[in-house]
């Protein structure tokens, strides 16, 4: 009952309308409902993620975090929103006006679109595309363009550098990301997120792909690439305050800046949600209603991301690139092969063999990727 | 289908011609590349439209389209590499400033 709460509400509403509306209108309304819900969900999630992040990081840095506005600072996001809205919107003089204006809008769109294929709970996928995962990847890959527009249009060296970095990084990490999803497609034989979640049901959560050798590997790789895709630390080179002021959104202020921020947080959410969907069995889980399970898993993953931010220092560019191309990519390739083995060989054999192959690959790759250490720097006045 | 095949073909033809025009006229080599991509896309539209409209296996045309897309990506990769090399050597990316091969 609780489980299907929202679904039933929607259905009920539609039946109610069905009484006195023509059929196409009902369909229209249902579509509108889904879209509206998602569109409302995005900003909401974003607002409270900001709060969560500030709290969590605060705790990690032995602070308390916002606690003035409202109880536990629950109204803090609202205050921030109002502040953002009321701020002056500055556009550089010789910026490319149109593009400069379009960029923040275009960066939110893919982030919102990605919500469409996420199964929030049993029967709670907005659109159950039969190419859901591919759709997600495709949409999230378009985000780079918006960043490009932003960095290029605001004629500013730092923005341009940030944009370059961002795009290089996103392109590089997209490849292993896509490749790390392939094993699941190989094993489940479908790309619809809904079906993938269904495939992980039962056995009190032990059918999660996280608990298979290949699944474990891809889960980690996928999550890492996700962190990189969303430009969060330790992969936040594109917006490294200390190196290039704030990267591609240096020249933005007020609501436009807020939009970038929003996009970033929504991406964070979607990435974690998809990780939960693909590897942690999505909304599968005992006792609690499905959507609750889903949000539990997602938010714990988000917490991990924030944990990263609180813990890890930033990568150097060459390290970042090296990780993507020299380690993750070959590993994912091997992983796909392993998934093939898993699919064909009998379980007990496969488990052993897969683990073996992956371990060996890991070992070899770690041996091959020697850490590059720059020669000792000489400071003209330093010594 | 709802829209007759011809309209898709005409659409493809228009895109094709625009691409052709760009290929002939743009000075900037990257612009030329973009135009070529346009041409390839028009081809894709035709392929998919045919595969939908004719009675053969529907995925055939789409597979061709996939191949076309892959080859397009390859073409762009090499083309851009050439453009950048050119830029490094001759400090220009304008097609009509690169005429070392004339008499």
């Amino acid at each position: 009952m609780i489980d299907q709460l929202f679904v039933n509400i929607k259905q009920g509403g539609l039946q109610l309308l069905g009484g006195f509306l023509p059929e196409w209108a009902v369909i229209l309304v249902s579509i509108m409902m889904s879209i509206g819900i998602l569109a409302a969900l995005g900003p909401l999630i974003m607002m409270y993620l900001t709060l969560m992040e500030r709290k969590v990081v605060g705790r990690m840095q032995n602070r308390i975090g916002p606690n003035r506005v409202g109880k536990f600072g629950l109204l803090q996001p609202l205050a921030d929103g109002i502040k953002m809205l009321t701020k002056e919107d500055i556009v550089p003089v010789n910026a490319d006006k149109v593009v400069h204006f379009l960029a923040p809008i275009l960066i939110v769109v893919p982030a919102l679109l990605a919500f469409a294929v996420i199964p929030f709970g049993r029967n709670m996928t907005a659109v159950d595309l039969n190419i859901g995962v591919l759709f997600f990847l495709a949409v999230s890959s378009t985000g780079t363009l918006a960043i490009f527009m932003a960095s290029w249009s605001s004629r500013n060296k730092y923005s341009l550098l940030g944009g370059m970095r961002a795009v290089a990084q996103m392109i590089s990490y997209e490849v292993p990301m896509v490749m790390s999803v392939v094993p699941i497609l190989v094993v489940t034989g479908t790309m619809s997120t809904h079906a993938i979640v269904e495939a992980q049901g039962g056995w009190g959560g032990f059918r999660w792909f996280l608990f298979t050798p290949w699944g474990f590997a891809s889960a980690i790789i996928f999550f890492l690439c996700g962190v990189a895709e969303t430009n969060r630390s330790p992969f936040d080179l594109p917006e490294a305050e200390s190196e290039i002021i704030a990267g591609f959104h240096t020249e933005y202020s007020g609501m436009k800046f807020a939009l970038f921020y929003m996009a970033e947080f929504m991406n964070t959410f979607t990435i974690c949600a998809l990780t939960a969907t693909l590897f942690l069995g999505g909304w599968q889980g005992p006792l609690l209603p499905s959507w609750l399970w889903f949000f539990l898993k997602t938010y714990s993953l988000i917490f991990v991301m924030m944990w990263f931010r609180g813990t890890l220092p930033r990568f150097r560019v060459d390290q970042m690139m090296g990780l993507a191309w020299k380690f993750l990519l070959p590993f994912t390739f091997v992983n796909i092969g392993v998934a093939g083995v898993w699919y064909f060989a009998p379980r007990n054999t496969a488990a052993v063999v897969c683990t073996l192959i992956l371990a060996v690959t890991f070992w070899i790759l770690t041996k091959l990727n020697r850490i590059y250490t720059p020669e000792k720097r000489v400071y003209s006045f330093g010594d | 289908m709802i829209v007759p095949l011809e309209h898709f073909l005409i659409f493809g033809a228009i895109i094709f011609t625009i691409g052709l025009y760009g290929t002939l006229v743009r000075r900037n080599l990257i612009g030329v590349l973009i135009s070529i991509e346009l041409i390839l896309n028009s081809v894709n539209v035709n392929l998919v439209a045919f595969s939908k409209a004719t009675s053969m296996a529907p995925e055939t045309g789409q597979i061709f389209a996939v191949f076309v897309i892959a080859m397009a990506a390859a073409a762009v990769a090499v083309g851009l590499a050439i453009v950048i090399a050119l830029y490094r050597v001759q400090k220009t990316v304008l097609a009509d400033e690169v005429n070392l091969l004339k008499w």
Partner: protein
Amino acid sequence: MVNQIYFVPLLPLAAFVVNIFFGKKLGEKAGWISVITSAAACLIALPIMFGVARGGHFHHEFLWLTLSNGHALEFGYLLDPLSTTLLFVVTVVGTLIQVYATGYMHGDPKFSRFFAYVSLFMAAMLTLVIANNFIQFFVSWEIMGLCSYLLIGFWFEKDSAANAGRKAFLTTRIGDVGFFIGIMTLYVASGSLNFRDLHHLQPHALLPMAALFIFCGTIGKSAQFPLHVWLPDAMEGPTPVSALIHAATMVAAGVYLVARSFPLFEAVPQAMTVVATIGTITAFMAAFIALTATDIKKVLAYSTISQLGFMVAALGLGGLTPGTFHLMTHAFFKALLFMAAGSVIHGTGTQEIKELGGLFGKMKHTSWTFLIGSVAIAGVPPLSGFWSKDEILLTAYNSSQRWIYWVLLASAFMTAFYMFRLVFLTFFGKARNHHIHAHESPVNMTLPLWVLAAGAILLGLPGSPFFGNWFQNFLGGHGEHHAEHVINWFVMGSSVVAATGGILLAAVLYLWFPQGALKMGEIFRPLYLASINKLWFDELYKRIIVDPWQATGRWLFAFDKTIIDGTVNGAGWLTLLTSRIHDVFDKYIIDGLVNLTGAVVQIFGAFTRRIQTGLIQNYLLIVFLGVLVLVYFELK
């Protein structure tokens, strides 16, 4: 789950890949990778072997590719008693030999590459063993040939090694071509290449041809009579290779081929006769040559050839079981002998019998194991060699061609003789060369020796009457022999006599009266010469194959030099003469014309070259307009 048999060849393959790519990084660890993989293969194979031993009979095919004529080529495996026996031999012996090799090759600069090759070989051999059709068989057969070539020529810095490798490769190639023709013929004749379809063959005119050509493969691979010359030279390779490839497994593959396609041979009696004859000749001839060889490994090589001859002869006489049985036992004791010999070479640094002697005190393990191996091969009961050889002799005795029995008996006698000649000269007496300070080999070399020695002692028993001829019944689903289940005391006695006689003679000549050997050499001088010169086979081949080519070459050279060159020079002289005349003509008339043309061309070119703008889009535009015009006129 029997399908995991596929991992058996795949694991060594993985080892090969790892070693070939990361060998340099791994260094001496590479050896253990190979060892572990083949050991794992052995473990995976074991339950399946038990399954087969309990009477199971597994096979599985998957489509490899579909031929244009609709026929399908399948890959897969066929696990019946025969292939299982081979599987057992190859995995066990292979693993042991690799363990041994980690000691033997220690410190070799190309260590990892060696093990890469060995692993590749193991993979190929195992694929061949479980193969269920001729194509798969042939493919892995060729890969084995390649590995053999690479490993014989492993120390290719030595010319002799390189040449030996080339010789082996080319010689076996002759046989392989025959084999392939045979496969084709068989395909034409029976329309299927699957082994299981051989059991219900329709008679066909081409079958004899197919059988004979397929037998060519055996002749080449397991060094039968006309093509046996490569095996002795193959001893240039490292000793583990000689033990693994050129004694235990690869050369046995030829025998396995005949056994595998046995129904085919049964279908054509004349082919059987050929097989039997060739085998017998080989057995006798090789044994005869081995009598006087003075290089440990050469002796062992010739004895290998002779034993293979035994097996082939047995198969030729319709004795599938004896052949296979002898194959198994031989694999064990011959590998043992080779490895012991290798250990001797390792410990003393030489392989010339003349320089060795009196090693018994210095190398305990090696000497004992070598002795055990020799007793086994000589055929002294109750060691393994006795039972299998006795089976073969029995088949020969019961067969229609009784003479084969006597020839084989003689070769058995010679076998015993030369083996013990080797033993006495190497291990007994006193050291002949005092610069050699022999020392025992490390444990990872001696341990496999003892394991194999145990095998050489015990493996005969399952085939012995004590165990009710368990092995024969295990293999004998083919029903072509029932006679030998009753013990034939005459044959058994004769073989024992031959063995002991040989040993005694050797003892007399080389242990008690060391001068006796020389005297024998004096008395039977022609025979001695014949044997010491390997029956002049190499010379013969040189005479009938190599020399004619060279002669032709020389003749052609002479022809070239005198006639062709003469013509050329004459032509040249004429040309000079004519050119004098031409010169004048040229200068004034031709050049004038040419220059005129050039001038004209220049004038026109000055205009036309304007077309060549060098602007790519220009060209494109022109092409496009051309197309446009063409299309237009096409449609109009």
